[in-house]
């Protein structure tokens, strides 16, 4: 409390001189001594300074809103508040709203009577209680204006739930609870009502008011700024009826929701996981999948190591063994008149290009997979290219599985002779997405070849050579 008071004071130090503030305080003090209800049960523990501060704070809130009305309110929420206050100017409207709320009956009575007739002492005590409650969250008001309404909402809820109020305040620091979207409006209404009342109670202390008013516009600005800054930090959690609303369970709920959301994604990603319910089963499945993938990597690396006697494996041994002329190859491909083959060829070129770029050793003669002997055998071609195509690892947008690709490729498409004899592959009309893809990839590959920090001297030559061969 005291700390909040000090903070508040520090805040105002910029606006008021010390003397002014002191006089204001003194006046406040006197007023509160005159009004015995302010010194009543609600402020029992407070002490003089505390009481002064509480009154102070209440006024500040009043003037915050006034200042906001004046400035127009940059912040959305605060602007909303302002509009609310404008709406609720007349006491009747206020009353209606509160009646609609239902749960604010007690403060409603107090506020109403207070607004209309300056109130008996008991009613005043009630309002004072409300004020004290509002001002009891002063540190939060200073720190974050967003938290402001919350603390105040908890105030009119009633005396019976002091524990809950505490919990609410704790939440303000971490999580903003939104029981219902309507609630916020309620809160705002309540707040406005309070501010009005405090205004009415303070009509006597005009000088202090003036002083405060000077500072209030500035504080409101600061508050709105603070709220703008602080806003993203809050996570809006919707607590359903009967759910716990203390900060720990809320945080836990948020965490659990996040986890389950991610788990859903995982379910989509991991095959055979969508039938399983329950976290443990899903985790089991995920573990199995990750393990199987890791084992596959192990196995494949083992296989590659076994297949390739040297570490720079697949290149020279891979393609260097049978150096069939590219043109021959392409001719034989072309004579087959298969679109799939064409695509395969494209992919093959791509693959080779990539490898050629990577490995200048085999750049002197354009290496190709030794297919020439089997070229005449269409059955082989229909089966085998799929594998090789798949092995390029470049058409992955297309092949979800090898089978699909195989089917796609082995599907014979009759193409006109001219099409086959087109001099360059790059001029092929993009009959399917493949072509576009591949062309992009080709370009990309060339760029890569130039930009990579490879032994570049034999390289560009090779690229150009391949380029030439590409265009045949």
């Amino acid at each position, binding site marked *: 409390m005291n700390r909040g008071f000090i903070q508040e004071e520090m805040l105002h130090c910029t606006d008021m001189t010390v003397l002014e503030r002191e006089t204001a305080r003194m006046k406040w003090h006197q007023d509160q001594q005159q009004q015995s209800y302010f010194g009543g049960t609600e402020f029992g523990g407070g002490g003089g300074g505390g009481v002064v501060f509480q009154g102070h704070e209440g006024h500040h809130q009043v003037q915050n809103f006034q200042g906001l009305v004046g400035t127009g309110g940059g912040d959305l929420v605060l602007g909303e508040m302002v509009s609310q206050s404008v709406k609720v100017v007349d006491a009747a409207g206020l009353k209606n709203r509160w009646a609609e709320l239902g749960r604010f009956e007690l403060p409603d009575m107090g506020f109403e009577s207070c607004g209309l007739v300056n109130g008996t002492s008991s009613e005043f005590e009630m309002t004072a209680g409300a004020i004290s409650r509002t001002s009891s969250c002063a540190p939060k008001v200073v720190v974050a204006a967003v938290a402001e309404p919350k603390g105040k909402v908890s105030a009119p809820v009633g005396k019976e739930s002091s524990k809950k109020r505490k919990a609410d305040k704790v939440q303000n620091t971490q999580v903003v609870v939104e029981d219902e979207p309507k609630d916020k409006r309620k809160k705002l209404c309540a707040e406005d009502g309070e501010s009005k009342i405090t205004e009415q109670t303070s009509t006597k202390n005009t000088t202090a008011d003036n002083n405060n008013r000077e500072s209030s516009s500035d504080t409101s600005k600061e508050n709105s700024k603070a709220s703008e800054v602080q806003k993203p930090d809050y996570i809006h959690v919707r607590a359903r009826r009967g759910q716990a609303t203390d900060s720990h369970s809320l945080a836990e709920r948020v965490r659990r929701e996040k986890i389950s959301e991610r788990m859903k994604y995982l379910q989509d990603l991991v095959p055979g996981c969508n039938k399983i319910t329950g976290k443990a089963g899903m985790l089991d499945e995920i573990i199995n999948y990750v393990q199987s993938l890791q084992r596959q990597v192990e196995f494949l690396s083992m296989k590659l190591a076994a297949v*390739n006697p040297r*570490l*720079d494996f697949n290149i020279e041994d*891979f393609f260097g063994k049978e150096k069939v002329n590219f043109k021959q190859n392409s001719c034989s491909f072309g004579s087959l008149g298969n679109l799939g083959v064409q695509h395969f060829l494209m992919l093959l070129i791509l693959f080779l290009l990539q490898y050629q770029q990577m490995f200048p050793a085999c750049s002197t003669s354009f290496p190709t997979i030794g297919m020439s002997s089997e070229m005449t055998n269409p059955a082989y071609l229909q089966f085998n290219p799929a594998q090789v195509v798949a092995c390029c690892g470049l058409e992955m947008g297309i092949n979800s599985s090898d089978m699909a690709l195989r089917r796609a490729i082995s599907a014979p498409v009759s193409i006109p002779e001219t099409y086959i004899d087109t001099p360059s592959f790059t001029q092929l009309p993009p009959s399917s997405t493949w072509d576009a893809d591949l062309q992009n990839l080709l370009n990309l590959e060339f760029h890569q070849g130039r930009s990579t920090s490879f032994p570049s001297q034999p390289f560009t030559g090779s690229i150009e050579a391949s380029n030439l061969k590409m265009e045949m």
Partner: protein
Amino acid sequence: MRHPSSLKQEFLKNWILGLQRCGFSSKKSTSIMERKKAIKLSADLAMASTRNGTTCWSRALIANASRDHKSKILAEQILGPESQSLKKASSTMPPVICSRRIRSKKILRRSCSSHVRRVRKIALPQKVLSANSVAKRLVQKRTNILKSLVPGGEYMDDISLIEETLDYIAYLRAQVDVMRCVASATKVVNQNSD
């Protein structure tokens, strides 16, 4: 999330780059296990560098590779000179988390000392080992296993663990696909050449 084809392409590029680096440096014939290790390491590192060190698992993967003394040289070869920053980022990142975690663990241990546990045990009689707690334990066990599987998983909390697992699975898939393709290509070529 990037498109899978570009991912695989980049992975293949990285991998071949890495393989080339370590392949050219060790011209002598090696044993199959060494080769396998090099291939696996290069594939892993290529995968991690494809992710560009933005996720925990990739950083942990690189860090693990460069921590082990034997594979450190190989890893450096594979990663090459341009990925020094990546390695730095990866090597600095995990220990910080690690130390903080250890410290927090210590604090935790100190704070919930023996008497707290005793009180809890008294409060919870043996018979009430409900299904809830059993399920929780099962989940915890599996989470721990998953943490050991995902590189760098020991330092993650639940939410980030699942996120990282998602990412890791996607990349593992790409890796497996590419490796399988290359293996099958090699097989085809070898068949043809024989």
